[in-house]
């Protein structure tokens, strides 16, 4: 028997495969939710950053601790977000260093930021992205690094000073 005979045939692969993939994905979501509900001792839905912080390139600092450091004025705050996102507002006095323009940004801060300076790195709450930048800074000899546990939104909500985006 030829398997191509007497069988449904679809000439356009896109609608059929998209529809089928959507149905399979819905089934997967339901199955995932079901299996998670049936395993109450399993992995929680929300990851605790402190569990993973040993994996980060620098220690985490809480929002309250960061606010205290900001008041003391001993640490420099580094905004690691992309230019368009940072345009909405930055921690007052923060400097920009981005992974995509790391060398240029570091060169601009050559006279301002010394390797022994304390740096608090922050992003939009994605600690992995901030940690990537911390790794690059460590390679350049900046060892006094902290990563802000929360993003700029939490900082602003807690009453931290924010200035308009762009050049600090």
């Amino acid at each position, binding site marked *: 028997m030829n*398997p*191509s005979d*007497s*069988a*449904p*045939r*679809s*000439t356009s*692969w896109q609608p*059929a*495969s*998209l*529809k*089928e*993939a*959507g*149905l*399979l*994905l819905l*089934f*997967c*979501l339901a*199955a*995932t939710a079901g*299996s*998670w509900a049936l395993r109450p001792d*399993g*992995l*929680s*839905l*929300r*990851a605790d*950053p402190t569990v*993973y912080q040993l*994996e980060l390139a620098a220690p985490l600092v809480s929002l309250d601790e960061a606010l205290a450091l900001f008041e003391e004025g001993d640490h420099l705050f580094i905004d690691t977000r992309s230019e368009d996102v940072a345009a909405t507002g930055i921690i007052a006095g923060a400097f920009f260093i981005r992974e995509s323009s790391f060398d240029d940004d570091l060169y601009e801060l050559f006279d301002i930021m010394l390797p022994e300076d304390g740096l608090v790195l922050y992003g939009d*709450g*994605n*600690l*992995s*992205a901030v*940690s*990537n930048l911390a790794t690059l800074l460590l390679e350049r000899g900046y060892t006094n690094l902290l990563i802000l546990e929360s993003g700029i939104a939490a900082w602003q909500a807690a009453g931290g000073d924010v200035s308009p985006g762009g050049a600090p």
Partner: protein
Amino acid sequence: MISALVLLCRLVVGGVFVYASLNKLAEPAAFAEAIHHYRLVPYALLHPSAHLLPVVELVAGVSLILGWFRRGGALLCAVMLVIFIAAITSALVRGLDISCGCFNTDAGHGVGLDLLWRDALLLLLCLPPLLVGRPGWSLDRFRRN
């Protein structure tokens, strides 16, 4: 001839995905850590990804093997492979020395160019079941379009 080729591709890709899902389903915490090693996924999505991805791998793999929603399964596998290739490339570019987390969450294969070639080959094998309209030797023959 074409039906045999499609069947072979389905069995290979489906088998790989089913096998890859088993350890991840058994060890979701270890798999979450493996995902975290790539430093690409935000914490809010880390555990949901560790729950969902192995299920998608299993379902897409079984779908391909049985030929039930064959094209959907092939598309899901292809999309996952594109994501895997992007993640591995990103890790290689950043010089991360990490386990890929592909089949074994404990001490798997380290990321490297060989993984890129393997995933690219699997991606290529997804194309026949995705593009060939005839259901061939699959359960899709018994479905109404």
